[in-house]
């Protein structure tokens, strides 16, 4: 569905050239749900804009939905849906006017646009709001309208740029319900960008980690975490017991340090290792005062890949 080779984009800022995207090679198969994860300014949105033909690449190629983005940008736009970061519906327009005209923009006939619009109004729970002004809708309703606008022409590939930024948890869950249903019913390929770790973690099958304009990791969330970070076990003992405790811990995993009686180790499948470790410590007469298991998040993955935390880049 998507195939890019060495996709690159640079901008001139004053006299300097800023490379926003540096040689992205990416393949997305039909039906996949892929999240681009990375801090602000990593190049996620720039990549998305090139894939949606809104921005021409400086070099490299991209084929999207079977067409080259440079050779046939209008053709690409016809086949994909794009839902941007901000409210896409004009605030001073009526809900139905925007929906119907969006259909016309994609070349649907009047009757097609009407039928499809009605279908989306009911599936996105916008019934009764057709004649309301967009500015009078709640945040969640506006977002659902944006999704309806992006789906009016039933695209085979849907791009969402930071779809849930600024939404409350309830609306975010609701949004995801719609996205997941869309996929189940129509097999739509979905590519989204996010800086919400939890979102990439729980919702996407495939996470593409982008930093400084490059793809630095590309796998399922579970495998990224297992590969890059591993589980971390921390336990606290009397300072006198530390040498013995370390000895036991070495057998369970890789000890990464001990600070004033608190020993830290990395282990695969920490949840299975922890009970055995505790009983082994008890056998060695080591009294454990506290023990915690930390299973990695994608932030740990990012930290291990780049030495920086993703959270630092998240909007305050």
């Amino acid at each position: 569905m998507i195939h890019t080779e060495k996709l690159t984009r640079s901008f001139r800022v004053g006299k300097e050239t800023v490379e926003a995207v540096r040689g992205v090679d990416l393949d997305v198969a039909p039906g996949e749900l892929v999240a681009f994860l990375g801090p602000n300014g990593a190049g996620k949105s720039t990549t998305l804009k090139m894939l949606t033909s809104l921005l021409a690449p400086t070099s490299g190629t991209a084929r999207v939905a079977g067409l080259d983005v440079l050779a046939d940008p209008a053709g690409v736009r016809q086949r994909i849906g794009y839902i941007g970061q901000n409210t896409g519906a004009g605030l001073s327009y009526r809900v139905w006017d925007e929906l119907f005209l969006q259909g016309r923009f994609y070349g649907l006939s009047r009757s097609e646009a009407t039928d499809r619009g009605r279908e989306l109004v009911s599936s996105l729970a916008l019934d009764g709001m057709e004649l309301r002004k967009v500015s009078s809708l709640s945040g969640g309703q506006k977002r659902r309208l944006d999704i309806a606008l992006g789906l009016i022409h039933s695209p085979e590939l849907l791009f969402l740029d930071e779809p849930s930024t600024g939404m409350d948890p309830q609306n975010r869950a609701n949004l995801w319900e719609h996205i997941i249903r869309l996929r189940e019913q129509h097999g739509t390929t979905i590519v989204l960008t996010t800086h919400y770790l939890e979102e990439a973690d729980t919702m996407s099958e495939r996470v593409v980690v982008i930093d400084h304009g490059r793809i630095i990791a590309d796998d399922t969330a579970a495998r990224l975490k297992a590969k890059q970070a591993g589980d971390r076990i921390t336990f606290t003992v009397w300072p006198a017991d530390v040498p013995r405790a370390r000895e036991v811990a070495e057998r369970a995993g890789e000890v990464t340090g001990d600070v004033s009686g608190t020993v830290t180790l990395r282990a695969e499948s920490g949840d299975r290792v922890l009970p055995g470790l505790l009983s082994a410590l008890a056998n060695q007469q080591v009294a454990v005062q506290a023990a915690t298991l930390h299973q990695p998040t994608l932030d740990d993955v990012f930290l291990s890949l780049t030495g920086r935390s993703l959270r630092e880049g998240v909007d305050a």
Partner: protein
Amino acid sequence: MATMLADTRSVWVRESLTIWRDPFSLIFSLLQPLIFLALFGPLLSGIAGEGDLGTSSLQWFLPGVVVMITMFGTSMVGSNLQYELMTGAFERILATPLSRPALLVGRALKELTPLVIQAAIITLVAVPFGFELFPAHIALGLLLLGLFGVGVGSLSYALAIAARKNEWVFWAVQQTLLFPLLILSGMMLPLDTGPEWMQVLSKLNPLTYMVEAERVLFTGSLGIEVLWGAVAACATAAIGLWVGIRSVTRTDF
């Protein structure tokens, strides 16, 4: 081409909805040129005295007002765009397969729609005061103005895109350019008695040729001025669209 026309129509329909859904704004915009005509016209005939303008200062002045409202309307295209540039509406529309010229032309035509009605009203209102009506000539005049307006509208569109990060820049540039252009076109006052530098500048102003062409047409005649007006209109439309399309396709939003 067929797609481009259909796309232009769709864009025009969407833009025009702001008028049809809220016709109050239209009523006020219709009053504006009438007020202008009513307050300016008498003064002008006073200045002109018994000179060659005296017979019908209206015949001289009214085409200028029509050109002025075209300039006011179409140079504002960008200001309506600014609002949508700030929200995501502009980006959403860019992501549709709509042809890029249609985005510009559709918006300019929306500003030109009320113009046709405005022009019709002020012309009809002027008839009882001695204004002679030549409908076919006026229609040709409006057509030329429409073409010219598409160019000005597209330039205004490009200006709004260029100034998308500081919206006041749009107003600063628009206002700074609009009034000198209007005055130097001889639209409000004749420039024949002005200093030479003004006359030179006015020769460089495409609007001058529009105003002169409209004056000839509104008196029911055809002349070389009309041809120059057509050249000015075509050139403005071509340059405007070229600049506008470039700014749409080359800007990173």
